[in-house]
């Protein structure tokens, strides 16, 4: 009883002064009820054992200086895109393009006094489904309280990516963003996300991928050192749908990226990948839960982390194959390259399978740079630092290969090279 009371008090303190925004009242009230039932995450929770949620739970954001990344060109800058800019979690119409793109309807979460049917049906729905069997209270909090975000309905093949650019300005910004994306049958869309967003960010993205629709998602979480972020992607795939998500994380005091994906229709394909680079005060956590609930679906999880100077990487990845989800093809790999003896990688791969005709594999490794390969490269004339960086990039290649668009992949690769050059030992 004592613990429950402590949690209730903690939650009450956290929510003091916060009011539910207007619009989508029913969904928000339900989310708040879910949050009250769960309480805030704690160190003793099974899925928070490796990541301390304290700074995400705190009543106010810990201040973080916005990083000046002007020594590099803006990421994805060379890619033709529809630009939507958020500053400290608030939409900046002046800095953004008009919300117009052929085959795509875009509106803002703040404009939902009378939401379209698809929005009312999707908002909070996938998040709520994703609360079982593992509680994700910070996502419920987001559904209840997030004021801003975009609502995207795709009715055709989008001619260019929608690019969400998150600018961090204020040292104490505490942002909550909630996006809903629905791809109708046979449509396609690429969403780019870039930037740190705020000193503290809580972001939820709900993605409904219709029959035969294709969704690509590539994000880069900025270069700020002090920022903290908890993000959730909830996706549900209809038959023959494709979902591919890649995340680049460099720096950042704390990052918890959760992906909760439901393969609900036959022959659907979901890939989630990430490359994380941390030097020093860096804690990066990828928590993935993929549910196979249909025939012949394929899922892949490819997560690579490069860690040095006491940086910490966490991977919690689960594949759940439900009864009847025959011919499932599930694959999961999580690997860390530890550039020194101080860094840590904590991995918890899980498979839970209730069908008898499935193929599921998982692997997890952590290790240092291969000295033999390093010598081989140097013996051919490649200087030590360049050889090391070549080997680090080689280590990350499997994750980067999950990006289908070659120009975007090349951009990501150049960011990684930049990071390696700046963090050369």
């Amino acid at each position: 009883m004592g613990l429950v009371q402590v949690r209730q008090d903690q939650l009450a303190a956290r929510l003091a002064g916060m009011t539910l925004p207007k619009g989508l009242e029913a969904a928000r009230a339900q989310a708040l009820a879910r949050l009250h039932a769960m309480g805030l995450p704690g160190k003793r929770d099974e899925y928070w054992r490796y990541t301390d949620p304290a700074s995400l739970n705190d009543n106010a954001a810990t201040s973080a200086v916005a990083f000046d990344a002007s020594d590099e060109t803006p990421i994805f800058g060379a890619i033709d895109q529809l630009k939507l800019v958020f500053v400290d979690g608030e939409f900046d119409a002046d800095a953004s393009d008009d919300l117009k793109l052929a085959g795509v309807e875009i509106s803002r979460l703040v404009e939902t006094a009378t939401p379209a049917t698809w929005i009312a049906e999707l908002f909070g729905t996938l998040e709520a489904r994703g609360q079982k069997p593992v509680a994700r209270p910070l996502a419920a909090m987001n559904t209840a309280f997030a004021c801003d975000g975009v609502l995207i309905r795709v009715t055709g093949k989008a001619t260019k990516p929608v690019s969400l650019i998150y600018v961090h300005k204020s040292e104490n910004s505490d942002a909550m963003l909630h996006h809903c994306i629905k791809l109708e049958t046979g449509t396609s869309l690429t969403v780019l996300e870039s930037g740190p967003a705020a000193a503290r960010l809580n972001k939820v993205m709900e993605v409904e991928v219709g029959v035969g629709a294709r969704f690509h998602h590539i994000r880069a979480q900025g270069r700020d050192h002090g920022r903290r972020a908890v993000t959730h992607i909830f996706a549900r795939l209809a038959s023959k749908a494709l979902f591919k998500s890649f995340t680049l994380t460099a720096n950042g005091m704390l990052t918890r990226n959760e992906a909760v994906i439901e393969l609900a229709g036959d022959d659907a394909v979901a890939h989630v990948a990430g490359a994380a680079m941390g030097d020093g005060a860096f804690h990066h956590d990828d928590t993935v839960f993929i549910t196979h609930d249909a025939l012949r679906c394929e899922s892949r999880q490819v997560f690579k982390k490069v860690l040095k100077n006491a940086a910490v990487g966490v991977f919690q990845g689960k594949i759940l194959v439900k009864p009847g989800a025959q011919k499932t093809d599930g694959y999961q790999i999580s690997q860390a390259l530890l550039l020194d003896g101080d860094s840590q990688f904590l991995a918890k791969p899980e498979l839970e399978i209730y069908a008898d005709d499935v193929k599921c594999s998982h692997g997890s490794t952590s290790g240092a740079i291969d000295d033999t390969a390093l010598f081989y490269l140097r013996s051919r004339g490649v200087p030590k630092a360049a050889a090391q960086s070549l080997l680090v990039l080689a280590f990350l290649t499997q994750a980067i290969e999950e990006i289908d668009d070659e120009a975007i992949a090349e951009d990501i690769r150049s960011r990684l090279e930049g990071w390696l050059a700046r963090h050369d030992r």
Partner: protein
Amino acid sequence: MLTIKNLHVRLEAEDKQILRGVDLTVGAGEVHAIMGPNGSGKSTLSYVLAGREGYIVTEGSATLGEQDLLVMEPEARAAAGLFLAFQYPVEIPGVGNMTFLRTALNAQRKARGEPEVSAGDFLKLVRAKAKTLQIDAEMLKRPVNVGFSGGEKKRNEILQMAVLEPRMCILDETDSGLDVDAMKLVAEGVNALRDAGRAFLVITHYQRLLDHIKPDVVHIMAAGRIIKSGGPDLALEVENNGYADLVSEAQ
């Protein structure tokens, strides 16, 4: 070209002396072979010359031209013109063979103050060299040595040598794991590179490679020293009689 004097080397990790006074001089345009029983220190010699970690030179010297090899980083030795064809070429997943070769070539050129080779010129260069070694485009695209057969790995070593154009080439048991046809192909690749300005040190267990790469001088190494040197006939003598007689003779 390569001058090794009284070279003594021991392992860093354990107190074990491997080389006990190696003396060897290889002149420009010459091909020298080193033969010897297992554990005689042949591969150690090649690694020490190339700059691999894990060895401590306790005495002696090794110079390439005027340069003291032993104080140089491995990459500097490569840029100075030293090349080691590995007995076991290393697989590097994630690094494309072409990227690897181009990075290496341009790094060496940069170190020597020469301009980088453009992507177009490089492609032409590699394609021409690859053709003579029967290395197809598919192999060039794959990650370095990943999924290569034993023969392909060795041919890839020779391709690197042909592209990088070193002046001192060390071949460490390049014939190991090769069938006769593959060995011929590799030998042809080596022979095509023979010229007055380039020298070779060919380390091998068996005489058969030397049928294809004709040495000027043959050295027999045992227990960390060169115990006998002679002409190509010495290799035949070993082939017929083994090392035992030579080793006991030297003792």
